[in-house]
């Protein structure tokens, strides 16, 4: 990972003890005792122990762990809904654990918006008034916060629902309101506490995709908590893996999958590792649209627009794959008054056979946004594999275990 990116939040040596004698618990911890022994000896629960990590500006950092791993405690320490026992949390030069009550309020208003697992919408407020909440608290005047909340609701696709009450909405829509409330607040950091865990699987996938889209537009620094590896792999730029209140591994999804730090992580991703026997065929989707080599550039461009894609695979009369046309090249072809697109094709794409193991595909994507083409022995285009589909398949394999 690029270590020179600007750091938004610095967490250093963060620990949290639940109980009345935290010092004692930390002493035992320093002597090398673990959570269960400390609980036995002192009655204190070591919630988090010596956590350090950075959150980079604009990244989506996933903190993932099973229940009891301390992930919910950790996210609540970030905005001090829970007081920490020791350690620093530095955001833009301010150390959150040492802030005064007043400075803390100010810090929360400026830096943090939070989305909750069970939505935590105010049932007595309309959708609009929920979305306005953060602004209202900050004393933004009525007309302005009205406008901002409206924009946020539009962004999450809730136009027309402004005057409804939360109990009139489905779970997915309620969480959109939760998201709008967070976006309207325009804080520098978005905290999402198991934000999609209460939604059913299909809606959850949609919400993940939408979050990724929003994220690519806004580049908001986001800390996302989840217990679901699939979700973590799908949306995380980087993942912090927690176990029993300690950090086990920090890395990109690829790093976690390919270089698990220890047996715990290995066991964790075992389900995903099953994917080594899965093949490209299982994740393949039919091609939505292709172009013919004899097509004119305008036709090809038109098709791309119709399907909102920015590149299109080009085949010959027998559906043999001969190249990839990017929207940009198509525009150039139009400018150059070319009759056909055949002179403007690119060969810079990946093609695999249907038998290709899925985990190999994962590395192939790199920074390319084109789907991988799946072809048979005669070079005929069978379908394409997009990055999300690989993760879906990996996740499904994990669930079947």
């Amino acid at each position, binding site marked *: 990972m690029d270590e020179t990116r600007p750091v938004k939040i610095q967490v250093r040596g963060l620990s949290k003890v639940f109980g009345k004698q935290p010092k004692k618990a930390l002493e035992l911890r320093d002597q090398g005792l673990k959570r269960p022994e400390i609980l036995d000896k002192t009655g204190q629960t070591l919630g988090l122990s010596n956590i350090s990590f950075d959150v980079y500006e604009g990244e989506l950092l996933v903190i993932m762990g099973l229940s009891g791993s301390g992930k919910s405690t950790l996210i*609540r320490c970030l*905005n001090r*809904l829970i007081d920490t026992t020791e350690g620093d949390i530095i955001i833009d030069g301010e150390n959150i654990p040492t802030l005064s009550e007043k400075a803390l*309020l*100010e*810090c*929360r*208003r400026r830096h*943090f*918006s*939070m989305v*909750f697992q*069970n939505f*935590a*919408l*105010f*049932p*007595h407020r309309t959708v609009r008034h929920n979305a306005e*909440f*953060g602004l*209202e*608290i*900050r004393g933004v005047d009525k007309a302005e916060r009205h406008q901002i909340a409206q924009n946020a609701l539009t962004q999450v696709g809730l136009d027309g629902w402004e005057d409804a*009450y939360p109990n009139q909405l489905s779970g997915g829509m309620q969480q959109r309101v939760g998201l709008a*409330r967070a976006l309207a*607040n325009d804080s520098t950091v978005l*905290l999402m506490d198991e934000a999609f865990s209460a939604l059913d699987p299909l809606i959850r996938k949609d919400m993940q995709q939408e979050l990724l889209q929003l994220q690519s537009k806004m580049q908001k620094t986001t800390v996302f908590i989840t217990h679901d590896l699939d979700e973590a792999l799908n949306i995380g730029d980087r993942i912090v893996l927690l176990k029993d209140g300690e950090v086990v591994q920090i890395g990109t999804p690829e790093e976690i999958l390919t270089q698990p730090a220890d047996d715990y992580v290995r066991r964790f991703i075992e389900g995903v590792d099953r994917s080594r026997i899965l093949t490209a065929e299982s994740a393949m989707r039919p091609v939505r649209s292709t172009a013919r080599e004899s097509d004119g550039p305008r036709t090809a461009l038109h098709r791309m627009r119709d399907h909102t894609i920015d590149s299109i695979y080009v085949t010959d009369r027998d559906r043999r794959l001969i190249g990839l046309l990017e929207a940009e090249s198509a525009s150039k072809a139009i400018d150059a008054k070319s009759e056909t697109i055949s002179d403007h094709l690119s060969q810079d794409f990946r093609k695999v056979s249907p038998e290709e193991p899925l985990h190999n595909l994962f590395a192939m994507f790199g920074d390319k946004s084109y789907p991988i083409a799946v072809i048979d022995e005669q070079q005929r285009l069978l379908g394409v594999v997009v990055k999300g589909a690989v993760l879906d398949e990996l996740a499904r394999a994990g669930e079947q275990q």
Partner: protein
Amino acid sequence: MNIPSIPLGDWIESGLTWLTSEYSSVTRAISRFTQTGIDVLNDSLMWLPEWALLGLIALLCWKQAGVRLAIGAVAGLALIWNLGLWNPMIETLTLVVFATLVAVVIALPVGIAAALSNRLYRLIMPILDFMQTMPAFVYLIPAIPFFGIGSVSAIFATVIFSMPPAIRFTTLGIRQVPVELIEAADAYGATRSQKLFKVQLPLSLPTVMAGINQTIMLALSMVVIAAMIGADGLGSEVWRAIQRLRPGDGFEAGIAVVILAMLLDRLTQSLRKTRRS
């Protein structure tokens, strides 16, 4: 063995005597103030012709709770009018409304404080138990030296007896606000008072209203008892019927109390339901 009995009664009596003599100016001022309030409310309600007040109440019922309650209100109040119990009914209504107002004005802040402070909560709850379980008659005895015979003493006793549910329900309502909503308010940087007025109070409103409803019902149940120390109203009609052994008159006044009770109950409950929960 001869264990001397503890002179608890003596202590309380001398305490009350001391209070009465020491604070007689205060109690007299309160008494005068309250009496004026009662008189103004009473007189203005009685100044209205019966049919006008009846119409107003029916309209209120219709707006708040619908046609059925409005029809019930008209029928019930017309019956009371017909029985010649209109003025006692107004006096009772005044007493109940006034006592409830005083009780709520005290109960809301106390209930809120008890919800927010655990120490206060532990202090207040046994006091409420005491207030509610002590036989209501007992409050009448100190009320007389404090405020003299009449409506003010009746209101004093009624307030003490009927206030506990309003406090309890307020406390309960605020404590029942889901933790995650409190967390949400905190996470967005709400101050204590913002949290109270934008989240905790609005969300506890239905419960608070239920408490106020209970307070009204308890206040109404005190009217007959209050008549024993000279409060006017339907209670004194009942009391008179008892003394003269006239069951017919007693039931007439009793039915008027029931009608008033049902009316107030349905009306306050509908207030509660129109709030969105």
